[in-house]
């Protein structure tokens, strides 16, 4: 059974429709990558899953339950975490405090989990008492993903996790995403670096103008000449 599925979702901001009936389906433990040109509605699709954009038509099912238009705090409690593309750390809080805030909804002892997050992102351990705003872009991204992991999500939504990063950091982040996925977390992410992202994806979703254009396994999409020509820059 699928963990998350969107069917014929239509959504937008203030009347302007951005998604015109998109579908997405991911099984537990999969990595799904959403690619497509600017303005295709990739980020909006993630935000719609996390209740940040109003869905006017269609449904979102998570683990067999209808979660269409539920509020973000409600979704965190169900095990969905969202990492925004920009401004995704509390800049004036320390790295450690950022991770603690990630666990805000938890009332149990999460110290073992904190250690695990530091194990996934070793550079953060040395900087744990430094304000997150002082970190490099790549390390800030690690804080952002680390914060999201603090609810032990079943599904993590990543909005362009490598935006603005140097190629070196990019591969580092993709490696970490694979490591997180290996612990059983389902990943849905939007990526500009489509080739690299599809290479680690179980499923790829190519969007254009708020609709699905191609949906297949990551490797099949990479091999498809038409996808390559129109969406991966030849």
């Amino acid at each position, binding site marked *: 059974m699928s963990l998350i599925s969107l069917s014929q979702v239509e959504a937008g901001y203030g009347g302007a429709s951005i998604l015109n009936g998109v579908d997405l389906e991911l099984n537990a433990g999969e990595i799904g990558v959403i690619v497509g040109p600017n303005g295709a509605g990739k980020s909006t699709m993630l935000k719609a899953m*996390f209740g*940040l954009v109003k869905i006017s038509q269609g449904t979102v099912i998570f683990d067999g339950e209808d979660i269409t238009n539920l509020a*973000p*705090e409600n979704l*965190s*409690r169900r095990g969905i975490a*969202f990492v*925004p593309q920009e*401004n*995704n*750390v*509390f*800049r*004036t*809080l320390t790295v450690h*405090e950022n991770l*603690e*805030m*990630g666990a*805000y*909804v938890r009332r149990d002892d999460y110290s073992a989990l904190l250690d695990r997050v530091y194990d996934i992102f070793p550079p953060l351990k040395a900087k744990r008492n430094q304000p997150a705003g002082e970190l490099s872009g790549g390390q800030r991204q690690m804080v952002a993903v680390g*914060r999201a992991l603090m*609810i032990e999500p079943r599904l993590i939504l990543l909005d362009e996790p490598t935006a603005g990063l140097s190629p070196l950091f990019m591969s580092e982040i993709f490696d970490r995403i694979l490591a997180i996925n290996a612990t059983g977390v389902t990943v849905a992410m939007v990526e500009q670096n489509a080739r690299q992202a599809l290479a680690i994806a179980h499923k790829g979703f190519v969007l254009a103008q708020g609709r699905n254009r191609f949906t297949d396994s990551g490797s099949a999409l990479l091999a498809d000449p038409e996808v390559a020509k129109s969406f991966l820059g030849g």
Partner: protein
Amino acid sequence: MNELIFFVNKGLVGGLVIGSIYALGAVGVTLIFGILRFAHFAHGDVMTAGAFFAYALAALLTAFGFSAPLPLAILLLPVVMAATAVFAIGIDRVFYEPLRARGARPVVLVMASIGVTLMLQGLIRLIGGTGARDMYLNAPKAIYRIPTGFRDIVITQPQVILIALTIASVVALHLFLTRSRLGKAMRAVSDNPDLARVTGISLKTVTKATWIIGGSLAALAGTMLAMDVTLKPDLAYNILLPIFAATILGGIGQPYGAVAGGYLVGLSETLAVFNFSVLLRPLQPILPASWEIPANLSFVPTEYRLVVPFFILVVVLIYRPTGIFKGRVF
């Protein structure tokens, strides 16, 4: 030496006292600004309301024959602070929350808070009258004289208590903001409200905590100010400008900046009106006869005291709008 102690009594003690009042007020204003994103102009009147709660409770207890070695208004501070915190939450519920729920822009909330100011001033005059009142119902204002071998250092009981409680409040606030889950969540909301939302931090709880801190500190400041001078309906409305100057000087949204700004504004105000010829007079014998030290050598005449915070406000806004502690700029 006598002159120096005169300077301590008039300049330093006075500056620390008014600085503490400003600091307590500015912490509330800056927290509300950081978390709810609007300038709360009614904060001065929340202070006055707190002082009136203290007076009313003390008067009630005196009427029932209670007495204590300390002035009742001081002993009642915890109750008064709690009552004012509830009062501040009430104001938010009735006036600001409905506006926020409809997505009102911050400027609308600022206007609403000016409305609340006018209303509170009217209510306070309606209930308490327009006259000045004495807060010492059961015990007189104690005055401590610290002998130094020269002139005594003079400080009153409410002044000592005010300075001590301000320091204690600032330490408590620091521990709360850096150690507790809710305090960190308040800083998180102030830092990045959108991210706080997707992290699952409850804005309701954080808002409530903000009003509790702002309201109780305002009650402390208002009550102690009324005990230092007298209780008047315009007690704290008159110091709204210095409080905002302190907030902006410290950096909007920065509680530590607000404390520093409060003391800086308080001290500069007192020093600006201090007559420095008192300090220079002992030098007269060694000066040439033609150099007469003028009778008054203050930077600003006492009646223009309010221009000092105004001047600070203007200078900070022009040359360093982020304030000392790099606050927000709107």
